[in-house]
């Protein structure tokens, strides 16, 4: 028998869930009780009324990723789960950064903001709020450059992800690639894909 010995990685998982009271609690409760590590979680309405979309950043090896997606699928209020491992997708995160700025440092900060195509959304007597969108690397690079000026506060939205060009159905089924070795079959996502036809109109 082979044991999974994958290294710690970050994976992105997108779940389509019912927009009902308590659904977030169900999802988070499952994640807590099974001791999964979540790097970030972003939730918002989807294109379909009555359904929300959640983007999870899951930390762990392949077997953790596999379990997270399978356990998410078991929740009755979770309609569909897509694991973006190996999928060409757009990843974005929004961050608000309050940085201290004096008359002497302000123009230098503005230069950095411009290079990062970020925006200044608030100007105070001794600080600025910068809004920046991008992947995590970009956000972190900006913060690193701003540190010498004095970063006072950071707010991050958590990662959002969307597959490029084609629909999410092409996202890999984690259960097919998550089990190590010569697995030939694992739970398919077909039923879940099929069942999207049953979704509320919208």
């Amino acid at each position, binding site marked *: 028998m082979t044991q999974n010995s994958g290294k710690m990685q970050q994976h992105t998982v997108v779940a389509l869930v*019912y927009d009902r009271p308590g659904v977030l609690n169900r999802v988070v409760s499952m994640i807590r009780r099974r001791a999964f590590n979540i790097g970030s979680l972003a939730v918002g309405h989807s294109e379909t009324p009555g359904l929300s979309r959640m983007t999870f950043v899951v930390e762990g090896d392949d077997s953790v990723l596999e379990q997270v997606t399978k356990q998410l699928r078991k929740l009755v209020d979770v309609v569909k789960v897509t694991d973006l491992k190996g999928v060409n997708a757009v990843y974005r995160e929004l961050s608000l950064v309050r940085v201290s700025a004096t008359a002497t440092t302000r123009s230098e900060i503005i230069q950095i903001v411009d290079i990062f195509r970020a925006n200044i959304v608030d100007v105070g007597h001794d600080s600025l709020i910068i809004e920046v969108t991008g992947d995590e690397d970009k956000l972190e690079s900006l913060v690193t450059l701003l540190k010498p000026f004095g970063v006072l506060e950071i707010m991050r939205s958590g990662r959002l992800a969307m597959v490029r060009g084609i629909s999410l159905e092409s996202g890999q089924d984690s259960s097919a690639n998550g089990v190590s070795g010569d697995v030939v*079959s694992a739970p398919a996502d077909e039923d879940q894909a099929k069942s999207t036809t049953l*979704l509320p109109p919208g």
Partner: protein
Amino acid sequence: MKLNGGQMICQALLNEGVDTVFGIPGGAIMPLYQTLPQYPGLRHILVRHEQGASMAADGYGRVTGKVGVCFATSGPGATNLVTGLAGAMMDSVPMVAITGQVAREAIGTDAFQEADVTGVTLPVIKHNFLVMTAEELPRVMKEAFYLARTGRPGPVLVDVPKDVFVEEAEFEYPETVELPGYPPKMEGDPEAIKRAADLIAQAKRPVIFAGHGIIISEAYKELQEFAEKGQIPVTTTLLGIGSFKSDHVLNIGLPGMHGSAYANHMINESDLLIALGMRFDDRVTSKVSLFAPNAKVIHVDIDPAELGKNVKPTVAIVGDVKHVLKQLIPLVEKADRREWLSHIDELQRNHPLWFEDDDVLRPQDVIQEISDSTDGKAIIATGVGQHQMWAAQLYKFKEYNSFITSGGLGAMGFEVPSAMGAQVGLPDRVVWTIAGDGGFQMTLMELATMVENHIPVKIALINNNSLGMVRQWQDIFYNHDYVATLYSGNPDFVKLAEAYGLRGIKVTRKDEVGPAVKQAMEWNGPVLVDFQVEQTENVYPFIPPGTGLDNMVEDPRLVKKRVR
């Protein structure tokens, strides 16, 4: 048709084929209770503690395969259900619990007898609903029953505020459910099944692990056909006992922590494990990295999340095990595995399940006698601990699905209420509960329920005046340091039984066991036999946790004999 919420629930229960409900009323659920007389098709059994209601519904659900139903009021009533619900979840038992909740406008105000029951139960059950309008009730009830009994069965809770029970709305019971996020998959992937058949054909030393899934899907015939065609020995997990006839030559019995030494040796020598509707619980595998080190694994389960959770399968098949076996059997070739089977015979001869047979009254004597006297045809309900393991090892089940035990949760106190529920579900069967004196005292108030409702359960109290399994661990791992395990103030259980209106029989000597069991069987009503057994008896073999299956410890008395 306009109905109020309480009427809707009763009507939905009837539509779902429910005839029995276990429960206790209270303020918040009173409007539902006061509706019950309008529905004479629903038998309500008034238990004495809500834990008894959920555990009785569990026993009922296991033996009948129908959904067990329990009622409790808000707050303490509902929180008392929780242990029974958690046990039903761990052991995949279909159950629906209806709980009263404080009135809608009082929710969240810390009202009298308010508890966040959907929050409390969320992590330990399959699904739950808080019903905020009567209009939703028909759909919710339909979904609750559908979820409870389909896929991997489990408990579902419906929490209903007091004023929703009296609110009126149109009642139209839905024919179907719309749960797009919940697709139980019945058929296995044909390609995977083909691959599994190839592995079976190549295997020299295959072993079938038959779990609770065989019983839930009633795949008894298929399992037997599969095992016989491939000449593959079958080991039945704790909850798989009763999935395969115990007198069948291919039945090798219980694996794992207190399984037989021969079964564990067989597993560790195996080159292919075929796991059918089981989940590689830690009591089965012990240390996973040392478990069946040379074996490939075919794992069939209806719950995809079980595949690869504990043991990584070579071939994973999601599906209902009955369907999958039907697909697999035609692809399995008739095989000759005489060499492997005769090796297992030899293991059985060299490492028998053994206990000391002398003049002392030992717990094993009692179980052996009950097994013989009932001809292996009783339903056996147990609590958790030593008596449970001896029952699993020694009772020779000749009927399918007749062992009712709290496996995953390991909830002491399960013995009496689950036996009660099983007897109510199958009134024509003989039901014995093999109880420990520890667990018995956690739910013994249900003796009153048994007497009141003429439920003729036979109780074999394996009374060693201690929490035997913990005491055993103290013997082995804590140098006989008996902290908080020995009782010095147990009641006179015979008098206690008689006070409740049961027949009580005391047994202190080995030669009294046979006659006492006979008397109990002949008594037309519930009876308790207090078997005052040897306190120091330990369960063997056992595997110290964190080690491999081949590290098992056999009974030192047996080992001594062998050396001699």
